[in-house]
């Protein structure tokens, strides 16, 4: 019931966006704001021939970036949450680097890692990983001491404590952090794709803009938004699945 309400909400907001867009294009009558129908028809025409490959590249980069961030950030956060010493050592480092605007690092990253895939992946990881590290650390710290007692009295080893308590207790929080970081990650992805690549939604949109092909440009923007929506929904569903106990 709740799920169907959510879908209804998504459809209402989509309709609202289309109405405003259509109204703007009627009122302004500028080529830079084509009607949503023209864009939709354009998407249908060029999706498989032109957009698809760019979408796959972008999806690959963002999912790779998120996967890498989770693989690196979650264990690090767990160690910081579980071992006070690790936390004391690494927390200042995390707090110090977290507020640095990562986009400012792009030129340095590109110099160090080249113009290819590596620097794009690194940029996404740099954006997403901090939220994941801090959230996993806090999730572990937030587990009440009593929870550990049952396992201690059973003589569980560290690995079992991680498997039975720490991972399940904090996975839902980690996904929430991922979802929060995803928005920034998509906009960073767009930015990195305007350099040194021929593929990706960022390249496609900027290329269409340079060619003054506004229909293609909007088609790219709509597809990029849909990609974001899809990723959000995927994470949402995972979150629901693993936090049923809450």
């Amino acid at each position, binding site marked *: 019931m709740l799920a169907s309400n959510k879908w209804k909400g998504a459809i209402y907001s989509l309709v609202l966006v289309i109405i405003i867009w259509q109204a703007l294009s009627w009122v302004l009558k500028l080529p830079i704001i084509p009607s949503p129908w023209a864009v939709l028809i354009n998407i249908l025409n060029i999706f498989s021939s032109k957009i698809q490959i760019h979408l796959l590249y972008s999806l690959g980069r963002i999912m790779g970036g998120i996967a890498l961030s989770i693989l690196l950030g979650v264990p690090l956060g767990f160690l910081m949450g579980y071992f006070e010493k690790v936390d004391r050592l690494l927390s200042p480092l995390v707090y110090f680097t977290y507020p640095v605007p990562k986009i400012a690092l792009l030129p340095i990253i590109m110099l160090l890692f080249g113009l290819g895939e590596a620097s794009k992946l690194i940029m996404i990881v740099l954006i997403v990983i901090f939220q994941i590290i801090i959230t996993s650390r806090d999730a572990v710290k937030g587990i009440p001491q009593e929870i550990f007692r049952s396992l201690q009295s059973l003589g569980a080893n560290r690995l079992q404590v991680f498997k039975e308590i720490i991972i399940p207790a904090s996975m839902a929080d980690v996904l929430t952090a991922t979802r929060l970081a995803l928005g920034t990650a998509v906009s960073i992805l767009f930015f990195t794709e305007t350099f040194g690549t021929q593929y990706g939604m960022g390249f496609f949109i900027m290329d269409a803009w340079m060619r003054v092909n506004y229909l293609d440009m909007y088609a790219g923007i709509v597809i990029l938004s849909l990609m974001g929506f899809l990723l959000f929904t995927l994470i949402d569903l995972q979150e629901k699945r693993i936090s049923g*106990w809450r």
Partner: protein
Amino acid sequence: MIEIKDLVVKYRRQKQETVALDGINLRMASGDIYTFIGPSGCGKSTLLYVLSGILREYTGKVTIDGHGIDPKTQRIGLILQNYGLLPWKNVYQNITLGIRIKNGQELLDDYGQYILEQLGIESLLDRYPKELSGGQQQRVAIARAFILQPDLLLMDEPFSALDAISREELQDLFLKIWKENNVTTAFITHSVDEALYLGSKIVVFSAAPGRILEVVDNPCFRLDNLRFRDEYYDMCMQLRKILNKGWALGAGKQ
């Protein structure tokens, strides 16, 4: 047989040292239920944490069948007041936690199934702890402890958060299952009634720092319909007298 010799436990909190347990000497025979009663803050729970191997900083000697406390080799069932269930695991996963860690066993055997039926929780297996009442959660915790087939069962005021009706129901159920297993049990309580009802021996603690005032043999244990008998009320009176005397002494010292 559990032997506790000159056990002293001190807590250090912001440079101040508090003595939680002071010179505890006790021999607990195998196959008995010992109830521990005393005022709150007298260190009863501390003793339980020592026996379960959670608390390791103490002086004195504590052995189970001649060996030092080691939860890795001994099988210790722990039942806490707040149930100690893992909220992200359903009832089945919670119940099998003990055997999973101890035996690497994922599935319940016939004995496990029997315990589930005894406790009446076989229909709750795919629920999460938050979907259960306090009484049901405690049944799950009891099932987990018994299915482990422990050498030693430790219970820290397990029924005190329950309403009177569920409490008496669970006390009876616990006794019934216990009588089929005869696990050596240390049962912490602050209720005179519970100490008498469940303990074959009753250990009376003084106010903090915790010392043992007296270990009382409970003649009422194993009598049927205990709460309707005169012996029960006589023992209640006797126990209350010991408690009052000890607490008055404790108060006088301060």
